[in-house]
C-alpha cells in the first residue's frame, strides 16, 4: 500500500507541475469553479480520506472500538492480519462514501434531462462527461482495490508463488523505469528538461497503462481528463479484466484458505461465547417481549401454503431482526416528504421542479442501495440454514425466487408510500415522481439477484474476506448487470423519445438481467452447502 500511495502522490505531483494552466491559476489566486473542478476537489478529498484511513495509527483504539479490541485481540489471529482486514473494509466504505458524492453529481446532470426541462447541447456534453468521470473514478478505485486485494491475499495466504510475484512486480517496475529512462534521455538529448521527459513518459501507452489508477486519479484531480483518450478506455478495460480474472484466480485457489478457515473456526467460537444471543439482542431493540413476538398486520394477514411459507418465514425473521429500523426509516422518509411539502405550502416557497425530482431520485437511491446491502445479511443467514430448506419439496429456482422476492417486497414497501404521498402532494409532478419510482423499482431485482449470486459464492459474512468479496463483487456485478438498462436510459435521455416506451424497455432489460442472475443463482444453489 505504501508503494501505491507513493506512486499515487508522485504521479499527482508530476502531473500538477506540468499543468501550466493550473499553475498560473494558482499563482493568480483564482481557480474557476466548474463541475469538473468540483469533482476534482472531491476526488482530492477522497484521497485525504483514503490516506487517513490507511495511515497506521499510533494507538490502535483510534481504529478499533473498545468492543473490537475486547473481541478480536484475544483470538488466535495475527493482529496485523485483523488490522489489514479492517483497513480493507474501511477503504471499501470510503468508496461508498465517494459513490454517494458521485451520485449527487450525476443526478445534477441527470435532472436536466428529465421530462419538461429544456436541454442544450452543452448540458448533453457535460452529462456524458459526468458519466465517464463517474466510470473512471469507479474503475480507478477498483484498480486500487485490486492491488490491495492482491497484496493482502498474497501476504496472508501465499496464493501466488513467491517467484511469480517477484517476477510480476519486477516486470511492472522495470516497465515504469524503462519508460521513464528512455523518455528522459530523449528529452535531454533534444534539449528539454527532466520534467518534459517525465511528462512524455507518463503519457505513453505502456506507462499510462502501468500507472492506470494513479494516472487516472492525477487526471481527475487536475480536471483535465479526455473522455476520448484511448489510454483511458484501455485502462478501463484493463482494470475490469484484471478484477474479473483476479476474482476467478482467487476463487479457484480457495482451497488455500483452509489454513485461514481453521483459524477462523477458533475465532468464531470465541466470538460466539462473547456475543449475546441474536434473538435476545433483537428483542432488546424491539422493547418488551410482547411487542417483539407480536407480528405486524401484514404478516398476520398472510395465509400461505407451500412455497409461500418461505416468504412468510422470511418476513417474520426480517421484521424481528430489522423491523424497528425499517419502521423508523420509513416514518422518517414520510416525514421528509410531508415536511418538504408543508415548507413550500406554508411559506409559499417556490421550489423548482428539478429539485423535487432530484430529491426523488436521491431518495430512491438512498433507500434502495442500503437495503440491498442489508439483504446480504439476510441471504447469509438464510444460506446458513440451507440444511433446513433443502430437504423441503421446493425446486432451487423457487427457493431463490422467494428470497429475492422477499427483499424486493421490502424495497417496494419502503418506497411505495413516500413516493405516492409525494406524487399526491406535488400533484403537478405526479407522473414524473412515479416514473422515477418505477425506474428505481425496475433496477431492484437486478441488484438484489446480483448480490444473492455473489453471496452464494461467499456465504459466510462472519469471515472478513468473504464479506469484502460480497460487497466488492456485488457492487461490480450489480452495475455490470444494469449496463443494458443504463444504456437504454442514456439513449432515452439524449434522444428524448417516448418515455413510456423507454421505461418499458428499461424494465425489460432489467428483467432479462434479473433472469440471467436468477438462473445462475439457482444453478449454484442446487449444489450449495454451507460450510464453516
Amino acid at each position, binding site marked *: 500500500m505504501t508503494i501505491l500511495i507513493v506512486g499515487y502522490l508522485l504521479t499527482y505531483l508530476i502531473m500538477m507541475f506540468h499543468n501550466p494552466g493550473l499553475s498560473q491559476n494558482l499563482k493568480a489566486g483564482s481557480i474557476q469553479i466548474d463541475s469538473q473542478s468540483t469533482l476534482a476537489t472531491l476526488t482530492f478529498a477522497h484521497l485525504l480520506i483514503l490516506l487517513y484511513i490507511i495511515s497506521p495509527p499510533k494507538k490502535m483504539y483510534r481504529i478499533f472500538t473498545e468492543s473490537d479490541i475486547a473481541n478480536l485481540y484475544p483470538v488466535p489471529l495475527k493482529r496485523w492480519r485483523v488490522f489489514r482486514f479492517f483497513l480493507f473494509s474501511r477503504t471499501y466504505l470510503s468508496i461508498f462514501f465517494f459513490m454517494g458524492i458521485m451520485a449527487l453529481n450525476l443526478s445534477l446532470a441527470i435532472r436536466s434531462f428529465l421530462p419538461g426541462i429544456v436541454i442544450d447541447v452543452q448540458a448533453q456534453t457535460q452529462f456524458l462527461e459526468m458519466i465517464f468521470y463517474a466510470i473512471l473514478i469507479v474503475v480507478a478505485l477498483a484498480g486500487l482495490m485490486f492491488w490491495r486485494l492482491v497484496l493482502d491475499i498474497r501476504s496472508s495466504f501465499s496464493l501466488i508463488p513467491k517467484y511469480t510475484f517477484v517476477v510480476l512486480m519486477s516486470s511492472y517496475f522495470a516497465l515504469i523505469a524503462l519508460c521513464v529512462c528512455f523518455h528522459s534521455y530523449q528529452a535531454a538529448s533534444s534539449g528539454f528538461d527532466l520534467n518534459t521527459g517525465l511528462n512524455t513518459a507518463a503519457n505513453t501507452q505502456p506507462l499510462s497503462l502501468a500507472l492506470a489508477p494513479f494516472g487516472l486519479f492525477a487526471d481527475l484531480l487536475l480536471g483535465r481528463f479526455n473522455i476520448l483518450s484511448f489510454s483511458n478506455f484501455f485502462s478501463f478495460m484493463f482494470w475490469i479484466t484484471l478484477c474479473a480474472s483476479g476474482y476467478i484466480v482467487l476463487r479457484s485457489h480457495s*482451497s488455500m484458505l483452509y489454513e485461514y478457515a481453521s483459524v477462523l473456526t477458533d475465532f468464531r467460537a470465541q466470538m460466539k461465547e462473547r456475543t449475546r*444471543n*441474536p*434473538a*435476545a439482542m*433483537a*428483542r432488546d431493540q424491539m422493547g418488551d417481549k410482547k411487542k417483539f*413476538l407480536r407480528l405486524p398486520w401484514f404478516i398476520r394477514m398472510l395465509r*400461505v*401454503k*407451500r*412455497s*409461500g*411459507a*418461505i416468504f*412468510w*418465514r422470511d418476513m*417474520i*425473521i426480517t421484521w*424481528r*431482526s430489522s423491523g424497528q429500523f425499517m419502521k423508523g426509516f420509513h416514518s422518517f422518509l414520510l416525514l421528509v416528504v410531508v415536511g418538504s411539502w408543508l415548507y413550500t405550502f406554508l411559506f409559499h416557497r417556490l421550489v423548482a421542479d428539478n429539485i423535487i425530482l432530484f430529491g426523488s431520485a436521491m431518495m430512491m437511491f438512498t433507500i434502495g442501495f442500503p437495503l440491498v446491502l442489508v439483504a446480504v445479511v439476510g441471504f447469509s443467514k438464510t444460506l446458513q*440454514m*440451507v*440444511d*433446513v430448506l*433443502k*430437504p*423441503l*419439496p*421446493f*425446486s432451487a429456482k423457487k427457493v431463490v425466487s422467494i428470497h429475492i422476492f422477499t427483499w424486493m417486497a421490502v424495497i417496494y414497501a419502503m418506497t411505495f408510500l413516500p413516493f405516492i404521498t409525494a406524487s399526491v402532494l406535488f400533484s403537478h409532478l405526479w407522473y414524473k415522481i412515479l416514473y422515477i419510482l418505477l425506474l428505481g423499482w425496475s433496477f431492484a431485482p437486478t441488484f438484489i439477484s446480483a448480490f444473492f449470486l455473489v453471496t452464494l459464492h461467499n456465504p459466510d459474512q462472519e469471515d472478513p474476506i468473504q464479506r469484502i468479496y460480497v460487497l466488492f463483487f456485488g457492487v461490480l456485478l450489480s452495475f455490470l448487470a444494469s449496463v443494458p438498462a443504463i444504456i437504454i436510459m442514456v439513449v432515452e435521455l439524449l434522444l428524448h423519445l417516448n418515455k413510456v416506451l423507454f421505461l418499458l424497455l428499461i424494465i425489460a432489460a432489467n428483467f432479462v438481467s434479473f433472469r440471467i442472475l436468477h438462473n445462475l443463482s439457482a444453478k449454484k444453489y*442446487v*449444489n450449495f*452447502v454451507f460450510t464453516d
Partner: protein
Amino acid sequence: MLSVSSLTKYYGSIKAADAVSFTLYPGEILGLVGPNGAGKTTTLRCLCGILTPNEGRILVGGYDLQKDDLAAKRLLAFIPETPNHYDLLTVDEQLRFIAMCYDTIDEYDRKKDELLDLYDLKEKKNTLVAELSKGMKQKLAIIGAMIHRASIFLCDEPMIGLDPQGQHSFKTELQNLRAAHCSAIVSTHLLETVETLCDRFIIMDAGKNIFEGTLEELQSRTDMHTHSLEEIFLHLTTRGND
C-alpha cells in the same frame, strides 16, 4: 420404499461414500452404524437432498431423487444430528412453517397440542427457538419431522441431547410409525438401541457398506454366534482387522 444403488460422494479428492447400496422396505427400521467418519451422515444428507451425489441412484417411493426431487422429498422427513432452526421464530411458528411447506397446516393445527405435550414443549409454544436448550431443539426437530405425511424418516443421531423421557417417546413414536407401514433409517452410535429397535442394520466403514442384514445374519457371517453387536462391530471396524 427406498432404494440406494452405488451412491458415491466425494469431498474434493476424499471419497466420503463409496458405492453404497441398500434397500429400505415398508414398515422397517434400518440402523446405520459405523465409526466416526464412516460416511453415515454423508449418506443421509445425500438421501434427503442436501448433498448431490457424484454417482449412484436414489429411488424414494419409486421417484428418482435426482430427476423427480419434489415428489421424492414429499415422502421424506429428516432429523439432523445438530438441529437447525430459525432463532427468531417461536416454537409454534417454526412448526407452522414446516407444516405450511408440506401443505399440512390443518393437520398441524389438529395435532400440535398432542405432539408438543408428548415432548414436553407445550409450555414453550410461544418461546423463541433461540431460547430453547439443545435437548429441546432436538425434540422440536423430531416434532417437525412428524407433522407432515412422510413415510420415510431419516434420523441422524436423533437421541443425542434427549432426556430419557424424550428418548422413550421417540422410540415409541418410531414403533408406531413402523406399525403404520412407515420406514426409518436411524444412524446412531448407541448399539443397544440398534439391537432393540432396528429390524436390520448396515455397518459402514471408510465410506463403504461392509454389512447389511440382521444380528443373526451378522453373527453367522462372522462366526461369532454368542457375541453382542458391540463386540462384533468392534471386531469388524477396529483398525488392523480385515
